[in-house]
């Protein structure tokens, strides 16, 4: 116990004068030490590459129908062929290509949803935390309201009313998820504002711009990046869930949720229609959860020690 404490203290004293590049190097070393972080980031990278490169690597058209080759099993099953490695669906569309293209929908929803939620939540939460008092009370009330509701139920409710479109899904998640970011931002801003280092900066004559950008923002980034990773994973889940209920993007778009909704109809006879999109969701979500865990431990120095 004691042997661990001393290097840790030296560590945090050094970090006072650490520059950005040193920090990056330090993060890299910490990443390397924690294999699950490496695995998680690699998994995310694979999904991002799949989404970006899908139209450029000679995949078959995910929308092209070929009724002559419908419901083919995956290549390694009897009756399968390597022309369609994951097999085909009831309209003869190539499942491999559809699964890869599905990453585009999921990542788009996850990325834009989180960006909107984080932007909204940070502004609102920062205002509440920084000014406090009546403004704080006015903002925290609605936040607590939304956070105490059965979330999934309301998302389904709203999606059923608004109808199927990519923009609707992004907006729904972006707006309904912002209270979480607001709550975390508010708490962090409150904590930082009351901290000794801000107090000493103020008494040393620092102006508000310096306090916000030199002291508050850098300390906010860690918790918010961690939160964003988990929330993105959750949004990808929820998007697929909505698609499964027929409430997400239009049925013509190859998304994992839509593929599952179709696969469900043929579960016992053509199970591969269900298997691959589900595995894709699991892979993505696992990558994000692993990275999120790692980020949380690395960005929060108080947890760094417990990790080893």
């Amino acid at each position: 116990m004691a042997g661990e404490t001393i290097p840790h203290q030296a560590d945090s004293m050094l970090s006072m004068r650490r520059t950005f590049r040193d920090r990056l190097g330090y993060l890299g070393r910490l990443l390397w030490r924690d294999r699950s972080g490496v695995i998680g980031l690699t998994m995310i990278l694979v999904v991002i590459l799949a989404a970006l490169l899908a139209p450029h690597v000679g995949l078959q058209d995910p929308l092209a129908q070929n009724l002559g080759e419908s419901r083919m099993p995956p290549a390694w099953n009897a009756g399968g062929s390597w022309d369609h490695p994951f097999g085909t669906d009831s309209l003869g569309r190539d499942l491999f290509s559809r699964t890869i293209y599905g990453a585009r929908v999921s990542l788009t929803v996850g990325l834009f949803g989180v960006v909107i939620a984080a932007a909204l939540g940070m502004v609102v939460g920062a205002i509440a935390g920084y000014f406090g008092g009546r403004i704080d009370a006015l903002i925290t009330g609605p936040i607590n309201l939304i956070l105490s509701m059965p979330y999934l139920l309301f998302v389904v409710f709203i999606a059923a009313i608004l109808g199927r479109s990519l923009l609707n899904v992004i907006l729904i998640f972006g707006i309904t998820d912002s209270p979480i970011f607001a709550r975390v931002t508010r708490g962090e801003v409150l904590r930082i504002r009351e901290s000794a280092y801000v107090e000493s900066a103020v008494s040393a004559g620092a102006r508000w711009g310096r306090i916000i950008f030199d002291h508050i923002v850098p300390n906010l980034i860690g918790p918010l990046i961690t939160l964003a990773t988990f929330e993105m994973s959750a949004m990808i889940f929820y998007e697929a869930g909505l698609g499964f209920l027929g409430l997400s993007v239009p049925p013509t778009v190859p998304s994992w949720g839509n593929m599952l909704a179709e696969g469900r109809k043929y579960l016992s006879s053509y199970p591969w229609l269900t298997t691959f999109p589900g595995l894709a969701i699991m892979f993505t979500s696992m990558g994000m959860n692993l990275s999120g865990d790692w980020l949380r431990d690395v960005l929060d120095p108080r947890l760094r020690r417990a990790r080893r």
Partner: protein
Amino acid sequence: MLRYFLSKLALSIVLLLGVMTLAFFMLRVTGDPASLMMSREASPEQIEAFREAMGFNRPLGVQFWDFLTGAAVGDFGNSLHYGSPALPLVLGRLPATVELAGVGLLMALVVGIPLGLVGGLNPGSALDSIGRFIGLLGQSIPNFWLALILMLVFAVRLGLFPAFGRDELTSVVLPAFVLGLAVSSQILRMTRSTVLEVRSEDYIRTAHSKGLQPRTIYLKHVLRNVAIPLVSVIGVQFGYMLGGSIYIEAIYAWPGMGQLLQQAIGWRDFPLVQALTVFTSVVVLTLNLVTDMAYALLDPRIRYGR
């Protein structure tokens, strides 16, 4: 304690009013609830007649007041599909959903707490790695997909459990397992990190240096302090299970509130959707209140305002 309870109760009532306001106005954000609820083939005259019958042509304030006063006495209007009051339909589905969530929670506790305790007490051990992997799986597997796969393997192929319905005693096993898995991973992670935290507290070191038996330390000091955050996680998760079983109930044709919700959306039966949403919120808010109370009973720091 009473003051604490009353302030929490007041907050819950305010939140409930907020939920009802949201549920009311959400149906009207598209501008025309009548065309939302009618099928696309309905003629303009039919829509107009429906609007008249539902009272959608009255001033918004009057409609809102009627909705609030109606809801206060349990009147959420008639279900469009069944043509009967919505709330009794929802209540009729409650036992099935509570059974599912209850069994699911039990499974989650049985898996999550022991693995979390073992992992927290021996971090890095083989059992800890297994536990953390199960935790990761539970977090990363989409429950609607797992539900399909388990149904395929254990019901369709192996025939061990019924594939759907609630007719047999074993019907609950598959849906409850799927529902419980995500929760068990929450409970596992929570238990593990709390044990890790408590273990390095000063009072544990004191207990060790007093020469207490390790068993006494674990039972008396560690477990008791782990119980406090667990209570709150369990309360929150049970609420989540009541509202979040929509996919699982839909897939296993489990006759609970989630299945009704999915059906109601398909029928465009929005009065029923509204009743379901508000009722579930009431249950969740009540659960949160109970959890807060249990928390305050267990942790005196909260009772006395820190």
